[in-house]
């Protein structure tokens, strides 16, 4: 249990350490109030469970400035995005959907599955910083377009899309807009009163909440086809016994996030980027300098391969991820780095550092130092180098 004291964990966009206060908030709903959420006319424990679920829903909805009835709990961001895309398309008369080509897998694979079933999918290009082009978006929307799904921010390179403009375009064109906010909810402002967004995927485990719980914001009046059949839970849109400890933990995690923390993450991010780019030659920042999530830094180290870097760093107690094919189970290079026009080499040599509540500046300094050593070591044995071919 003491392991995390010695390790530096910078893969917080993959998942985070659950905050102890979240665990404490969840405990009573596993040990004492463990009943399912019943109707008001059943037994006391069930009513208490129902109250807890209601309260959790309200807290999370409040953060979005939404009505609590517009929020349903799911098993996580993956299920939320699956339900949003498949649910909307199956209910809608339109058979065309627009997504960006750098969406995370839940949206990307759901769209591909829909494509196989006969729906038409447009994959929007992104520029070299990962931004969707508004003109291309407008041009892609047709008479039979039912849904646009463009993420709030990117999972790998942190690019924050202009969702103000995107949501406005969708509203004007009369199509539904879904955004995957897995990497922004809690970290960046998101207000459904201000922005005409119809569906939002929300995650808990990226903000020090538990895994196995997520939510989907569904604007009042938006029609969805239920995907998980069974009971009538979650407004009859998602069957299954409610994960009440999860929902309570998720709500607690949302409550614990504040502006100050996000500012602190941003400072660590900038310090890391600045430190690495100034100390290590032949590095490229992936994603924009300004409009990126506070927790994300992504840098390519030329002439070296990502799996080797991450393995060396792991042996030094540092956990980060890479877009290299060799790192992944699928042996495929990052579709995001390729999507922003990077070549395979840029993907293979890319590292993603993502910050969370439990990181500090001391760790940032250590990571810069260790990364610098590892890159130097690997470049010594690399046959590639500046302007030379073997």
């Amino acid at each position, binding site marked *: 249990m003491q392991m995390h004291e010695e390790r530096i964990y910078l893969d917080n966009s993959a998942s985070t350490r659950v905050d102890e206060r979240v665990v404490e908030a969840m405990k009573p709903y596993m040990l004492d109030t463990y009943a399912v959420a019943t109707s008001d006319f059943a037994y006391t424990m069930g009513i208490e469970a129902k109250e807890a679920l209601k309260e959790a829903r309200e807290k999370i909805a409040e953060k979005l400035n939404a009505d609590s009835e517009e929020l349903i709990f799911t098993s996580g961001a993956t299920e939320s995005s699956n339900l949003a895309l498949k649910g909307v398309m199956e209910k809608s008369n339109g058979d065309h959907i627009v997504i960006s080509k750098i969406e995370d897998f839940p949206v990307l694979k759901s769209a591909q599955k829909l494509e196989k079933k006969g729906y038409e999918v447009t994959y929007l290009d992104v520029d070299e910083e990962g931004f969707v082009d508004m003109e291309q978006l407008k041009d892609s929307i047709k008479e039979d377009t039912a849904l646009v799904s463009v993420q709030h921010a990117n999972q790998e390179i942190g690019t924050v899309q202009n969702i103000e403009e995107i949501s406005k375009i969708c509203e004007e064109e009369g199509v539904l807009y879904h955004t995957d906010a897995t990497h922004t909810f809690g970290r960046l402002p998101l207000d459904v009163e201000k922005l005409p967004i119809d569906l939002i995927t929300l995650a808990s485990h990226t903000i020090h909440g538990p895994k196995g719980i997520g939510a989907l914001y569904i604007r009042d009046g938006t029609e969805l086809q239920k995907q998980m059949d069974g009971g009538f839970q979650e407004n009859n849109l998602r069957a299954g016994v409610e994960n009440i400890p999860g929902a309570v933990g998720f709500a607690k995690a949302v409550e614990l996030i504040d502006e100050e923390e996000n500012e602190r993450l941003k400072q660590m991010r900038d310090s890391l980027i600045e430190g690495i780019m100034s100390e290590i030659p032949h590095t490229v920042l992936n994603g924009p300098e300004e409009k990126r999530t506070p927790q994300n830094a992504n840098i390519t180290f030329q002439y070296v391969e990502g799996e080797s870097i991450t393995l060396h760093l792991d042996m030094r107690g540092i956990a980060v991820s890479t877009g*290299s094919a060799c790192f992944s189970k699928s042996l495929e290079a990052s579709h995001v780095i390729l999507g922003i026009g990077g070549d395979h080499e840029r993907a293979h040599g890319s590292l993603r550092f993502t910050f969370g509540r439990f990181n500090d500046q001391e760790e940032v300094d250590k990571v810069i130092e260790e990364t610098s050593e590892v890159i130097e070591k690997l470049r010594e044995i690399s*046959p590639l180098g500046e302007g030379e071919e*073997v």
Partner: protein
Amino acid sequence: MGMPYNEKVIEYFQNPKNVGEMEDPDAYAKEGSPACGDMVALYLKVDEETHEIKDIKFKSYGCASNIATGSIITEMAKGKTIEEAKEIGWEDAAEELGGLPDLKTHCSVLAVDSLREAIRNYEERHGIGEEERETTEEVVEERLKHVMNPMKGQDVMKTELINDVKVEEGKTVTVEVDLESDHQFASAIEEDIIEKLEPRWDVEEVKVVFSEG
């Protein structure tokens, strides 16, 4: 621990042996490409009389499996004759390392290929073994199996990237590639093809032709 690599692999990954380049090698080979995420360069010094590998150096751009295999094969090959060294397979290298993850076979095969290619390069330069063997279309196709298709991570023959191969009088070799010349990998593939064919004792010129838009 959950680490996919055993201690020996990690040891070679952290402290690879025989790393470096050679000023004036008797033979060298470069296998793989940065686009595929793995590349090995290997250099040999060979005794002209005994054909014994006197010195061997390698450099690697790749994952742990690639680096460790590159290191172990250089140790295994050093002191052997080129005939003996040719027999070293990736299974031998993997066994010597105490096993490698299945998923990483490709990376270690590449390292072993680089040794075989360097030996072949030596033989071609010295007209050994191949002396009698003329460069025919068949031989060219054989050689093209060592040119990577970076889009697929497999060779250009297997991935059907080659439209046609011609060997003409005076030994001009023409290879038609099923790619447009402005494709992002066109020049890398062209370079690789030339590198594999030009050292042949009877080849005068290598032409790589790309398809038109």
